C-alpha cells in the first residue's frame, strides 16, 4: 500500500476505551522507534457502547484494530489550538473522567468559567454543543497543548472526556480558534511534503475530529479543501473521528489528541 521506510502502526480504537494514552505509552516503551504511530478512534457521537470495529471476520466493540502499513510518508497530526491564558487544576480524575476542578465539582467550575468569560449559560442539555468550543488542554513544553474535549456529563457532575486526563493534571481551558487561525492547514501541508503541491497525483487519507467539525461547522469543509489545494492531493478521503493518534513532530512521542486532523499520504500498491 505504502512503500519503504519505517512501517506505520495504524490503530483504530473503540472511542470508549478510557486509557488509550496509557496504552500508547506502553506501546512506545515496547516498540520504540520500530514503527511510526498513527491512528484514530471510532464509535458513535452518542457515546453509547456499540460494536464499531470490523475486519473480514467479525464486528467488535471495546477493542482496537491495528494495521501495520509499509511506510514511506510520514503521518502528520495537528490541531492549531492556541495555548490559552487560564489554567486550573483537575484535582480529582479517574482515567478519562474529570471529577473535580480546583477542589470543586468539575461541572460546577466549568459552567462558572464559561458563564463568566463567555456569557454562556451552560446546562446539561446544551453541554456537548458548547463543550466542543471550550475544551480542556494539557500543556506541553513544546508550546503546545493536547486537547481534551468533554463529551458527556455524568450524574455526579463529572466531565467525561475522550482520552485520559492525568491525575492532578493542570488543565488549561481552551477557546477553540476560528478557522485556520494558527495556520494549522498550512503547517500540516508543509509537514506532509515540505512544499506546495508536494502530494500532486497522490491521494490523502484524512481523519477529522468530530468535535472539531461541530466547532467549525461548514468551515470544516473549507479546511479540507484548503488542505487538498495546498498539498495538491488528487483526492482527500477519510472520516470523522472521535480521537486522533500521532506526534506533532517528526518521530516524536505518540500522543492521543482531540480536535485534530490525522493525515497520511496514500499510495496504491
Amino acid at each position, binding site marked *: 500500500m505504502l512503500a519503504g521506510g519505517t512501517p506505520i502502526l495504524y490503530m483504530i480504537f473503540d472511542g470508549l476505551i478510557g486509557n488509550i494514552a496509557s496504552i500508547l505509552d506502553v506501546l*512506545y516503551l515496547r516498540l520504540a*522507534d520500530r514503527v511510526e504511530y498513527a491512528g484514530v478512534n471510532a464509535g458513535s457521537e452518542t457515546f453509547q457502547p456499540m460494536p464499531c470495529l470490523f475486519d473480514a471476520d467479525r464486528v467488535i466493540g471495546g477493542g482496537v484494530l491495528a494495521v501495520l502499513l509499509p511506510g514511506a510518508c510520514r503521518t502528520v497530526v495537528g490541531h492549531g489550538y492556541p495555548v490559552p491564558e487560564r489554567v486550573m487544576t483537575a484535582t480529582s480524575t479517574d482515567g478519562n473522567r474529570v471529577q473535580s476542578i480546583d477542589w470543586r465539582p468539575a461541572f460546577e467550575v466549568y459552567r462558572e468559567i464559561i458563564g463568566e468569560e463567555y456569557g454562556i449559560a451552560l446546562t446539561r442539555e446544551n453541554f456537548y454543543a458548547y463543550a466542543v468550543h471550550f475544551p480542556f488542554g494539557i500543556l506541553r*513544553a513544546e508550546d503546545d497543548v493536547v486537547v481534551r474535549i468533554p463529551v458527556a456529563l455524568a450524574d455526579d457532575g463529572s466531565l467525561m472526556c475522550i482520552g485520559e486526563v492525568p491525575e492532578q493534571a493542570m488543565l488549561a481551558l481552551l477557546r477553540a480558534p476560528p478557522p485556520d487561525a494558527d495556520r494549522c492547514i498550512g503547517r500540516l501541508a508543509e509537514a506532509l511534503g515540505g512544499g506546495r503541491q508536494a502530494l500532486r497525483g497522490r491521494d490523502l487519507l484524512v481523519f477529522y475530529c468530530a468535535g472539531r467539525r461541530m466547532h467549525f461547522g461548514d468551515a470544516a469543509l473549507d479546511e479540507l479543501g484548503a488542505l487538498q489545494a495546498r498539498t495538491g492531493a488528487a483526492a482527500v478521503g477519510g472520516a470523522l473521528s472521535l480521537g486522533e493518534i500521532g506526534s506533532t513532530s517528526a*518521530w516524536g512521542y505518540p500522543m492521543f489528541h482531540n480536535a485534530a486532523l490525522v493525515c497520511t499520504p496514500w499510495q496504491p500498491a
Partner: protein
Amino acid sequence: MKREHILSLLYDLTLTIGGEVRLDALLTKVLQRLLFHTAFPAGVMLMTGGEAGSEAPGSATPGSEAPGRESPGRESPGRESPGSATPGSATPGQASSGRVILTASVGDHGLAASVGQPIDVPPSWLDGDSALIDDVGQAPWLRAGSRAYRHVLKLPVSPEGVILLLSPETPTSALPLTQVFRPVLRNLAKAIQLCRHSEQLTRRLISDRDQARSDLAAALQRSERERVFLRQLTDTFPDLVWLKDPEGVYLACNPPFERLYGAREADIVGRTDEDFVPKAMAQAFRANDLAALASEAPHVNEEWLTFASDGHRGLFETTKMPMRDTAGQVLGVLGIARDITQRRRDEEQLHLAASVFVHAREGIMITGADGTILQVNKAFTDITGYTRAEVVGRNPRMFRSGGRAPSSMPSSGGR
C-alpha cells in the same frame, strides 16, 4: 501565561517524580513525561555512581574514543558542542573517563538494547548546567541508536547522572528547555536516592520474608514428622493414651482408648467423661485430673475399667501428668493407663506360693540349675540346724559330709 505554562509542566513532573518508589519505574516515567512535553523522540538516563566507574565484565565498548575527542562539534550561542570542557568538579564514578551506565532508555530500540551497559561520554555531557548540544552524530555510543541524532538536550541530575533527550531535528520549543526543568531535576536526584533506599529495604524485607518462609517450611516439616512419629507411637502403643484440656475436654486419644469408650477419636474429641461414663465415675476421673494438674509429679492410681467395645473389664494403673508448652503454660492433662490385670494375678500367685513355702512343715530347699542353694524355708533350718546364711550359695553336697542331721536331708527343688 508562560509562567503558568512552565509551572504546569513542573507540576506534572513533580507528581510523576513523587509517585514512584522503584528506580526503573521512576526513570522510565520521567523520561516518558519529558518526551511528551518536549516532543523529543528518545531519551536516556546515564548514571554515575560506584558501579559506573568500574568496567563491568565483558561490557567494554569497542571503538570507544578518549573523552572529548568524539566529535569536533559545532559551537552556537547558548549551546555546547560535545567536546567542549565545562569547568566543574567530577561527580563520583565519572572521573576523567566519563564512563557511566546507560540506566534507562525510551524511544530507541537500539539504545534500549544497551541498557545496563557502561558507556563513555564526554565529561562535559555530565558536568555543568543544562545545555542543548548540537552535532552529536559522531558519539560512538549513539551509533547503537536506531536514528541519526544531531541534537541532545542535556539535563544534569547531579550527583546521580544525567538525562539526555535525543532528536534528529532541531527542537522547536518556544520555552527555554535548558532552564525549565532545573527545579524538578534536583528533586529527581533525591527521588533516585530514595528509590534506591526503598529498593534496598524491599530487597532486605523480601530476603527476610523468604528466610522466614523457609524456616517455617522446615519447622512445619519437622513438626509434621514429629506429629506422624507421635501419632504412630501412640496408635501402636498398647496402653490407653489420651489428652484432655484443663477443663476436662478431650483433645486426643489413641485406638486402645477408643475401645474403652466404644467411640472413634473424632467423636471423643471435644467431649468430656460425663458423655461416656456414669456421673460418679466421671467425677472421680475429674478429681484425678485436677490432682494431676495441681501436682508437679505424675499422679498414679489404679482403677477397674470396663470396655464399651466388648464389655471386658480390667485393672489399670493410670498415670496422669500435666502437659505444658515451652513457656510453661498448662496445655492439659496427659493420661496413660496400663492394663495390670495379668500382672496383679501373677503377683497374687507368687504371693500364694511364697506363703506355702514359708509355712510348710517340710524343709524345702530351692537350688539353681547348677545345684547352688538359692533359698531354704524355716522348716529346713529347723530340721538341719543350719541357718539360712550358712546354706544359701553352697552345694547340697555339704550335707553328705556327716553333718548335723543326715537322716533328715530335706527334699530339693528347682525353679
